[in-house]
């Protein structure tokens, strides 16, 4: 009993430590975003029932994504021609950084219009209850989620679901050995996810698996040569390539780019040392990839690098620890 009282008292004390005041910048950010956040009517007044919310949300994803694409095209046109690269090397090199509407440390690389980043797939409010949103198709009609049973699902605009894989079968999925990430092709027909070829090992037999949505079993596309954790598979905007990270026992990370069918894997050797990669993201035009890293040794620091998909032309982006390509979700 005394021990319990002691635990309670220690926890009470520990929880009192820490900040208690919401910074003014957050209040300003909230108020500033109200204009872009329309109030919803109660479901009942729309004549729907609770079950309709999911379908409505997905229709919303589609509408918002379509608006985002339209807006991105407008930006592209303003920047000089239809189909011109967004966030191209020249524009990112210019260091044009738009002010973020929120205090989140996002960086808009090269565009004055962070149009798509904070809507559509990135909107946490659209994620189904108790599921994690992993990716959405380019047209916004399908979302890839991981539910609480570790089922990888594609949810379609009509609310129907297609199970892609049961990651719960990967016994070593939990803890630090957990592979991270899955991506859906821009046309929504194919999913590539990170997993393990052998469960229960400490280091980790990571692999990438590919599966056509609604057809067949996942196939191994690529296996880590160093038994490492594979993470952040990300389709290029045109669906032809995949960028992802690989590691050895969760350190000494590498970035790879390969064709979406698993051929021609190329290791990207960058100046980020034997550290960690925390995410990769393609530019809207597919001509640049950004990666977030923290270096080993610590003297390398952490930050954002961008590079061409062939592994050339590395550029350090200073002053940010998150990134957001213009025309891409964040």
């Amino acid at each position, binding site marked *: 009993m005394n021990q319990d009282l002691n635990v309670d008292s*220690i*926890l009470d004390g520990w*929880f009192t430590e820490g900040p208690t005041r*919401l910074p003014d910048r957050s209040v300003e950010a909230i108020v500033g975003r109200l204009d872009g956040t*329309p109030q919803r009517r109660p479901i009942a007044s729309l004549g729907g029932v609770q079950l309709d919310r999911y379908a409505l949300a997905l229709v919303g994803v589609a509408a918002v994504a379509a608006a985002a694409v339209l807006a991105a095209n407008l930006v592209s046109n303003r920047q000089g021609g239809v189909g011109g690269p967004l966030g191209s090397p020249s524009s990112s090199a210019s260091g044009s950084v738009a002010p973020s509407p929120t205090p989140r440390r996002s960086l808009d690389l090269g565009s004055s219009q962070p149009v798509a980043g904070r809507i559509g797939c990135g909107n946490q*409010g659209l994620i189904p209850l108790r599921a994690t949103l992993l990716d959405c198709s380019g047209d916004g009609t399908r979302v890839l989620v991981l539910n609480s049973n570790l089922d990888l699902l594609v949810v379609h605009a009509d609310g129907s679901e297609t199970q892609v894989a049961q990651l719960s079968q990967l016994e070593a999925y939990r803890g630090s050995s957990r592979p991270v990430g899955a991506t859906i092709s821009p046309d929504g027909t194919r999913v590539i996810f990170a997993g393990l070829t052998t469960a229960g090992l400490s280091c980790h037999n990571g692999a990438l698996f590919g599966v056509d949505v609604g057809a067949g079993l996942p196939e191994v596309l690529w296996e880590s040569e160093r038994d490492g954790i594979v993470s952040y598979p990300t389709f290029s905007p045109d669906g032809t390539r995949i960028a992802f990270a690989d590691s050895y026992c969760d350190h000494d990370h590498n970035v790879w780019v390969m064709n979406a069918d698993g051929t021609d894997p190329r290791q990207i050797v960058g100046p980020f040392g034997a550290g960690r990669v*925390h995410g990769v993201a393609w530019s809207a035009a597919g001509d640049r990839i950004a990666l977030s890293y923290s270096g080993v040794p610590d003297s390398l620091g952490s930050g954002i690098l961008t590079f061409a998909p062939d592994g050339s032309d590395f550029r350090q982006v200073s002053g940010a620890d998150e990134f957001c390509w213009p025309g891409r979700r964040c």
Partner: protein
Amino acid sequence: MDRDLVERAKQGDKDAFTALVVQYGDRLFSVAYRILRDTTRAEDAVQQTFLTAWRELRRLRDDDRLEAWLYRLLVNACFAEIRHTRRWQPGLRVITDPEIAPSSDDTQVSVALRDELERAFRRLSGDQRAVLAMHHYLGLSGAEIAETLGLSRGTVRSRLHYARQQMRAAIEADSRLVATGELA
């Protein structure tokens, strides 16, 4: 709680809603920080909470339940932040913020013990973190937490039990280190 403010906010009055943000912002932020242990993510969670609240406010049937409803939205926003963090950070790193770390003079919990508690807390699930913070920081009983989060009392009791068990293990581990002189 000013019912008039809530009613006006429901009708789309931004000034009224801003007043609610000011009124509840600090409390929500304090709880979010206790769940997430990171000021930036706590700010993000609070922002998301208020934006969701603004969007969904018309669906709030009982204005007197506003605060409980906000806590429920906040906890969901914290869960989303935890998922996001895990997705983008394969290895969680402990972030120490010198601005919020108390000095050694006014330390209520020793530095070593604090580290143990931080590590243990970060190993808890979001569900467990939320009930622990609401119990020990807000001082809510299990029944009150259950009502606020829309859970059964048994579920809350179970989450509290397992969360406290892990935190107790951390405290005991710290005690052993002290006893063996490793921290001397």
